[in-house]
């Protein structure tokens, strides 16, 4: 009886969004009279930071500071249609809709500025600081604040735009089953090291080293946060979380979350995250979906590491000490 060290590796491809009815999301953008921009969505921010990233995307497209963009996700009854924030689709699908809406709004904004500056709208550019100027002649400029006032009070125009993301649904070919379930894929790989006590069946995760390829990280700190949190959560899924801890029959199981095993801050494995950025051709500024994928490759990597350590394959989650001991017993009697 001993503690045995094992190492496991796993790699995944992860589709961004899904193949259901075109996976649509829509966005509306309009300016306030003072040149701030409202993005109206019915996409919900679950805490993953959707509002922040959508504000960045809108600001980048229109050419204003992120602080000048307000994201309204107030009401799924009244907002533009969105399939929802799931399937790692938020940044990619809704981001593409926001870009389209912001481009239309930007075009109107430049047309209004062109009236004020008596030039052609195609000769205008933004400085990202809240001003519009003639290309090559930065002294000939107007603030976006004044542009919005002019649109609202003199020209009677609405600086606004409509955006939509929709891909044709892909049906499988009858003969081969071939289809295109997603338009872009993220990738990840994990190397996990574990110690397995072959007397008690207990697994200690020594380290998880992850590399994620997620297109462009639009907000690198928030991406890191998502990946670190996800990596921890999935160790929990792989080894701990079940409503029936260690017992074969349901009536021995926990009756509420007090008896639901979840690791705390004292149970952290050494975690390493490396982000690779390979911008996606159809992603908003190259982004793919890092959402759910952050909690995928660690599970097979841990199962492989346990196999490497003690030679048993556990194909049921969570990989509890009981399941490992039963498998070891079967292995010995074989």
């Amino acid at each position, binding site marked *: 009886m001993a503690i045995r060290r094992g190492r496991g590796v796993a790699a995944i491809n992860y589709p961004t969004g899904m193949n259901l009815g075109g996976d649509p999301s829509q966005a509306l953008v309009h300016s306030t009279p003072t040149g701030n921009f409202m993005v109206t969505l019915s996409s919900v921010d679950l805490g993953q930071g959707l509002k922040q990233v959508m504000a960045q995307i809108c600001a980048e497209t229109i050419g204003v500071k992120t602080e000048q963009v307000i994201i309204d996700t107030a009401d799924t009854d009244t907002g533009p249609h969105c399939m929802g924030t799931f399937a790692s689709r938020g940044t990619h699908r809704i981001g593409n809709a926001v870009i389209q809406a912001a481009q239309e709004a930007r075009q109107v904004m430049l047309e209004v500025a062109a009236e004020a500056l008596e030039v052609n709208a195609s000769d205008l550019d933004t400085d990202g600081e809240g001003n519009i100027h003639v290309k090559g002649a930065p002294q000939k400029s107007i603030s976006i604040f004044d542009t919005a006032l002019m649109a609202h009070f003199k020209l009677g125009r609405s600086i606004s735009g409509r955006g939509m993301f929709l891909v044709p649904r892909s049906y499988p070919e009858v003969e081969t089953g071939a289809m295109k379930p997603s338009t872009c894929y993220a990738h990840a790989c994990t190397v996990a090291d574990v110690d397995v006590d072959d007397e008690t069946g207990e697994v200690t995760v020594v380290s998880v080293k992850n590399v994620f390829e997620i297109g462009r990280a639009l907000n690198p700190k928030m991406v890191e946060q998502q990946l670190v949190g996800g990596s921890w959560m999935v160790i929990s899924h792989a080894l701990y979380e079940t409503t029936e801890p260690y017992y074969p029959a349901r009536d021995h199981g926990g009756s509420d979350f007090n008896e639901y095993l979840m690791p705390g*801050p004292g149970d952290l494995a050494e975690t390493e995250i490396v982000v690779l950025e390979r911008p996606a051709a159809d992603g908003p500024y190259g982004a793919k979906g890092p959402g759910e994928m952050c909690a995928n490759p660690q599970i097979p990597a841990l199962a492989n590491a346990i196999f490497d350590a003690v030679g048993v394959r556990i194909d049921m989650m969570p990989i509890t000490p009981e399941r490992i001991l039963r498998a070891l017993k079967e292995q010995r009697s074989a």
Partner: protein
Amino acid sequence: MAKVPVQFTLNGEEKAEFVDSGATLLKVVRDKLGDTSPKSGCNQGTCGACSVLVDGELRLSCLTLAETCEGAHIVTTGGLAKDGVLHPLQRAFMDEFAAQCGFCTPGMIMAAKALLDRTPDPSRDEVVEALSGNICRCTGYEPIIRAVLTAARANSQNAA
């Protein structure tokens, strides 16, 4: 049921309320006094989201009867910012991206404050120990541990 009078201070302000006998401090602070910073998570004392300081001690307000707080000084995360300036712990949680959905954050901050009030320069192990009664689902704890250590360093630099 007869109401019970209770007086205490909440974040330095005197409060007097008639509460139901058996009402928890959490319920009174949230529903009667309108400070919703302590969160109602499990209501069984296992998640830590309702943590507050009662006379400087970390307490689970969901398991504390309001009527036992007569004359006490109660501090919640809602009272930490002064004149619009964030408390160093709040600042550090922001800078270190130590919140995602944010539901555990007020409890985490109170647990961290209780630690830093008695141990201004804690080791990583002491931080982990102090946070071990609080559950977070999003962050994987690492950013929270970092934030508490960052706040401790900021405090010691201000004191120096």
